[in-house]
């Protein structure tokens, strides 16, 4: 079973980097430009449920923190791991992300090579190594 990531990322450059990194992994990636689009997709029963949410914090409109809270309150994503991938290393952001229910927080490395490696590691860890909760429990 291949793992499906929902990524919420507004920066088109980073979207390209995300996709490039996921290309060489075994996981699938679906990218949304803002929080509303992501929540719409989660609510849509036609669509496949995400196995992992990959969230940027600085988003147009509603923030990544709000998305985390929404996902935690949504019965279909209540136990889905939420990984924050943000350029912010500010402790306040990190703390509020965990407080909202994030499972992991990764600061986007400045260097592209490091960023690529980080995304690949996330995909590998959360997509294959990490054992997800039972879907029926959702």
């Amino acid at each position, binding site marked *: 079973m291949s793992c499906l990531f929902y990524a919420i990322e507004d*920066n088109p*450059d980073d979207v390209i*980097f995300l996709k490039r990194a996921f290309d060489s992994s075994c996981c699938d990636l679906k990218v949304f430009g803002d929080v509303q689009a992501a929540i719409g997709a989660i609510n849509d029963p036609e669509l496949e449920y995400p196995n992992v949410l990959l969230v940027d914090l600085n988003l147009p409109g509603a923030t990544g923190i709000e998305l985390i809270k929404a996902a935690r309150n949504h019965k279909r994503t209540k136990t889905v791991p939420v990984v924050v991938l943000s*350029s912010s290393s*500010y402790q306040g952001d990190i703390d509020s992300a965990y407080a909202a229910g994030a499972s992991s927080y990764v600061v986007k490395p*400045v260097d*592209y*090579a490091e960023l690529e490696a980080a995304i690949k590691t996330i995909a590998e860890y959360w997509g294959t190594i990490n054992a997800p909760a039972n879907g029926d429990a959702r």
Partner: protein
Amino acid sequence: MGNIEVAITNSDRGDDRLSWRAPVFRYSVAISTVIACLVLVGHFAGIEWLTTLYPAGAPTSITVAFLVLALEASTGLAWHGRHRPNLRRASFVVAGLVVAAGIVMFAAGEIRDLPSSAGIPRSPDEIAAQLDVAAMPAGTSPLALLGITALGLSVILTSKKTAAFAQILVFAAAAMTLSAAVGYLLGSSSIYSSMPTFAIIGFPTVIMFFSASAAIIAANGDRAVTAEVSSGLVGGRLARRVLPAVLIAPIVIGWLRVFGQNLNLYGTAFGISLMVTSLVVTLGAMLLVGTIWLNKVDRERTQAEAESIERASRIADILEGAAEGVVTINSNGVITMANPRAKLAFARDDLMDVKIKDLIPSGLEALDVLDGSSSRTGFKRDLRMVGETSSGRLFPIEASLSKRVIRGETTFTLIFRDVSERVRAENRIRALNERLEGQVRRRTEQLNRTAGDLEAFSYSVSHDLRAPLRAMSGFARIIADDFGGDLQPEARHYLDRIQANAAHMSNLIDGLLEFSKIDRVAASRHDVDLARLVQEEIELLEPAIDGRAVNFEVAEMPSCNADPVLMRRVVANLLSNALKFTEGCDPAKIAIGFDEDLAAYFISDNGVGFDDQRADKLFEVFQRLHSRDKFPGAGIGLALTRRIVEKHGGSIWAKSQPHRGATFYFSVDEGKPANQTQVARAGVDA
């Protein structure tokens, strides 16, 4: 003030005169008691001369001696009974007995038979008979009984109200005795020749009566006539000067007259005229002396009065022109004097007889306190009161208050100043201060806000700048990875340059971010072992040394009280700096130690050094003295180091010459904030 002192001294002088009374009383009582006892011994033992004590004098009777003893007892009781009513009552009883005995005996005829002629003996026989002591009429002299009755009465009358009567009685008794006394003084041979028999009293009686009189006078000498005589006033002083002369002069003159007559120098008529003339001359001379003396006293007094008036007018002038209000207040709280300034302050034409509480509605507690104290003087200052003008306007007062009791009269002097202006000024200053504080508060808020803004700014700059930077380097990398094979070498080189520049810019952003963070970090203070810290940092430099030949010399150095994390940064920056600028030196020498003279730590190297002239540039952000190609770096390290050192109240400076190495000094002021001189020193020494 001088006046008042004089007044007090004068009034006190009267009391000092009392000191004569105790000895006079004691000696007088002793003399009369001893004589009375002698007389009694004389009578009972049959020693005749003890009853007369004067050759061929009349004897003193047993009755008189007893009565005198009783009189002395009553006088003694009166003296000691001045403050003890019981003794005083006993004194009255004894004196009353003396008086009663005198009267009874007088009435019972227990007295010497009066001669039928009741006059002066005329014939030689009569004289001879009178001179014969043995033939003296028996019994007690009526004059003596009269005298002792008068003295007894005077003891009874020894009270404040009747003192004058008592003293008059005493003087009368003394005067009665005086004739006999004078007789004895002028010579016994002529006593009886010129005296009516009823007037004849014994010599002991004379002395006893004088002593008894003196004792009674002493006992109530602070009253009536004797009080006047013993007073410090002019009359008393004059009386005391003249009295001895008045008593002695006539007696001396009389004696001279009799003496001359006995020598047959002149007859009776001429003798009398001589005596009268002498008396007139003597009394006239005394009067003259008294007059001159009185005039002198009067002139002195007039002078003193003039001086006191002058002094008073000077004081009045001072009061008139004083910038302070001055009022005097009596014990009823009523104003008795006010200077113009006081009237002006209360906006009233006249303050006389005004109650002070009507003028000063609050703050007069000090007045009550002084009034309540038993002390004769008192002073309180720096009193705050509130005054009220006639129009009802209230104004603040600062005052001093003094109290003085003169002759039983209490006077308060209030010296005050209307401090409205000062209070207004103080209020203005306070208002100004509050406004300034408000301004400071607002500015501080602004500053805090600005600092917050700046933080947000540097935060967003660092992160927002990074994203495009990452994109640029990322895409350059992707092009190189994905399409590298199709590219010319030159194109690949340019892609490398893009990535290198992106990396450098990333370093710059990191440095800026770090630099802006330093100010916001609160420096803690701990004991930092700098030598160990240096050792640890040198070990961490191992990868950077990269096999180069580098000699580190770490000398002993004192520990310092600083933030360990920040100090580690300082050491790391300076060490890596030294390492960087000794590149190419073989071997590189880096020494770390403490300079006692400069009280500063130092890190010296034998590297390329720099031009001292431009040393101040070293510590500024992005300033560099060497090209980045030769010595890479963001240009943040030393600026950051200076920030940290200054944050610890210390300073940092450097000395160098091109190609001869450089030495960086830094000091840490333990527990003190940075100050201007130290910051300036960085500029001067560098």
